[in-house]
């Protein structure tokens, strides 16, 4: 029933949970959620279809199908995770499966902003540290306590300094990652910009 999870709201300063490791570079958003699942007018039921084709191919051996991972919430990935399509359906599907934070070597730009926009903090770590976590995950359960204030992740016997864009970190701590209201605060500045832009004057026939 993970697909009925309530999306996060407000300040996010800690994420605590079990890690799930997904090995591979350049895992694209078509793989995270194949295009046929984009035929929907809301995101509600995407969780069950996350990695659908990869999971079918691996016949139950995909990390998202393993019994021991069913309560995991911190996804561990490699480099350029989420490349390709801008579909927010990808992080939405991960979130609705149960993912609350992602740690990887690097993320594709649009995927990263989509994660921030829906309240999934994404952190980076050097390749070596990731391999350490991924090996750890392979052998036994790894629980991490992520602290956004200090950009730290720790378990019983591991400790990492996480990297996160300072703007994203601050937005999570203040709760402003849900950007609409922050953007709306500058109503007058937006109006001024609208009135000032040269091309809106010579394109007035379109308005």
């Amino acid at each position, binding site marked *: 029933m993970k697909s009925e999870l309530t999306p996060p709201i407000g300040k996010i300063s800690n994420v605590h949970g079990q890690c799930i490791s997904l090995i591979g570079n350049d895992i*694209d958003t*078509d793989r995270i959620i194949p295009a046929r699942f984009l035929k929907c007018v809301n995101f509600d039921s995407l969780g069950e279809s996350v990695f659908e084709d990869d999971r079918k191919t691996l016949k139950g051996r995909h990390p998202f199908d393993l019994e021991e991972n069913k309560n995991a919430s911190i996804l561990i990935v490699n480099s350029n995770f989420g490349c390709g399509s*801008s579909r*927010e359906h990808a992080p939405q599907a991960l979130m609705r499966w149960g993912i609350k934070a992602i740690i990887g070597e690097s993320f594709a730009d649009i995927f990263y*902003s989509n994660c921030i926009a829906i309240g999934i903090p994404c952190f980076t770590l050097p390749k070596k540290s990731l391999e350490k976590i991924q090996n750890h995950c392979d052998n036994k359960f790894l629980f991490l306590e992520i602290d956004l204030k200090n950009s730290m992740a720790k378990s019983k016997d591991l400790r990492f300094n996480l990297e996160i*864009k300072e703007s994203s970190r601050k937005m999570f701590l203040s709760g402003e990652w849900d950007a609409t209201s922050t953007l709306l605060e500058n109503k007058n*500045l937006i109006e001024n910009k609208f009135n000032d832009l040269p091309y809106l*004057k010579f*394109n007035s*026939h379109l308005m």
Partner: protein
Amino acid sequence: MSQDTLFDKVWDLHKVSSLPGGSDQIFIGLHLIHEVTSPQAFGALKDKNLKVKFPDRTVATVDHIVPTDNQSRPFKDNLAEQMIETLENNCLEHKIRFFNIGSGNQGIVHVVAPELGLTQPGMTIACGDSHTSTHGAFGSIAFGIGTSQVRDVLATQTIAMNKLKVRQIWCENQLSNGVYAKDLVLHIINKLGVKAGVGFAYEFAGPAINALSMEERMTICNMSIEGGARCGYINPDEKTFSYIKNKLCAPKNKNWEKALTWWKSLKSDENSIYDDVIEIDASKIEPTVTWGITPGQSIGINQQIPLLDELSPNDKLVAEEAFEYMSFTPGQSIKDIPVDVCFIGSCTNGRISDLRIAAKVLKDKKVYKNVKAFVVPGSEKVANEAKQEGLDQIFKDSGFQWREPGCSMCLAMNSDKLIGNQVSASSSNRNFKGRQGSPSGRTLLMSPAMVAAAAINGKVSDVREFIN
């Protein structure tokens, strides 16, 4: 940090404020929407009790889910019908211009906006689609956004974003005969890698870029995102201005003069500073084909699929995955690999010039037996123009199916899909696992001319043998 590039200028011009976290609030001059990534954004507006701030600055069309065989309504696919209806209702309710099927202006959003003259130099353009980078061909700063940001643009006409760094990709010399913009951009992505562009805007420049037509420039900028760059652009020039002139939504008369004066002032300064500069020799590029599961895994037509040892440690992991998925052997020639399906279309290569080039190759030739070949024009305008020139007949005579406009098998959200592990020669932009609708389908990306050559021979071929 970059200085005085076109990117810097357009960014600064559109900056509304510095946000508390350190990112910028950027005004979006033109917002394009389609049926797939907008419904949840309109839903969120409703939940928050918000209105569309500047409905005139958003333009809609329908492209991803439309069938290309029979477009009569209601669509056979109920879900597709529900999506187009939702878009129709949202546009009606919020007074947004919508170029629907049959309007004469429907098509793939990145084909439609330029051909209507909506895409103009110096604008910021956003759309819930990663190939929005296409519009950078006009010297606009254009990038894909997710649905939450679509919501933000609808509600505020702005988004929160960190400023990108700027890498200039200087393309020296000229492409040789039979080598096209698609080959150039595949080559660039191969040289730089699929994640080199993360955090960057790409400025494409140099003699090889200047020589390209506007449609070829769109092909280049379109695929910036496949190199990891959310935004790619080219400084505007006379070709840009004359492409826009007299288009339906282009400024007219006095406004045209004003526009022209402003556009001419828009370019990277001669001594502007880039965060990085890369040089490519365009004259050395061959017709290029992908062999793997990322757009960076490509080689020239006369080359062999690389051996694992030839690859950098970083590329090995995904190469191994590619060998397994594609069932190709390291060291194997890309040439002569048999193909099952040939697809010409998409926002990368579904424009009239693409169809003209492919038709020229196909004239008086036949598609190889058992190869399924089809062409999907990028828009209704492209389709009509092609028909006027008799291109549709050339395609049909050769054995290609002539379809209605849409995204089609680029991402296979309609019924155009690969079956099983079919190999497709495709003029689209992504060769990801499962991208063309079958979880085991295999995609080889190439130029439309190369797709035409593959269709005739039933295998990957060098198009230069047909045109020289």
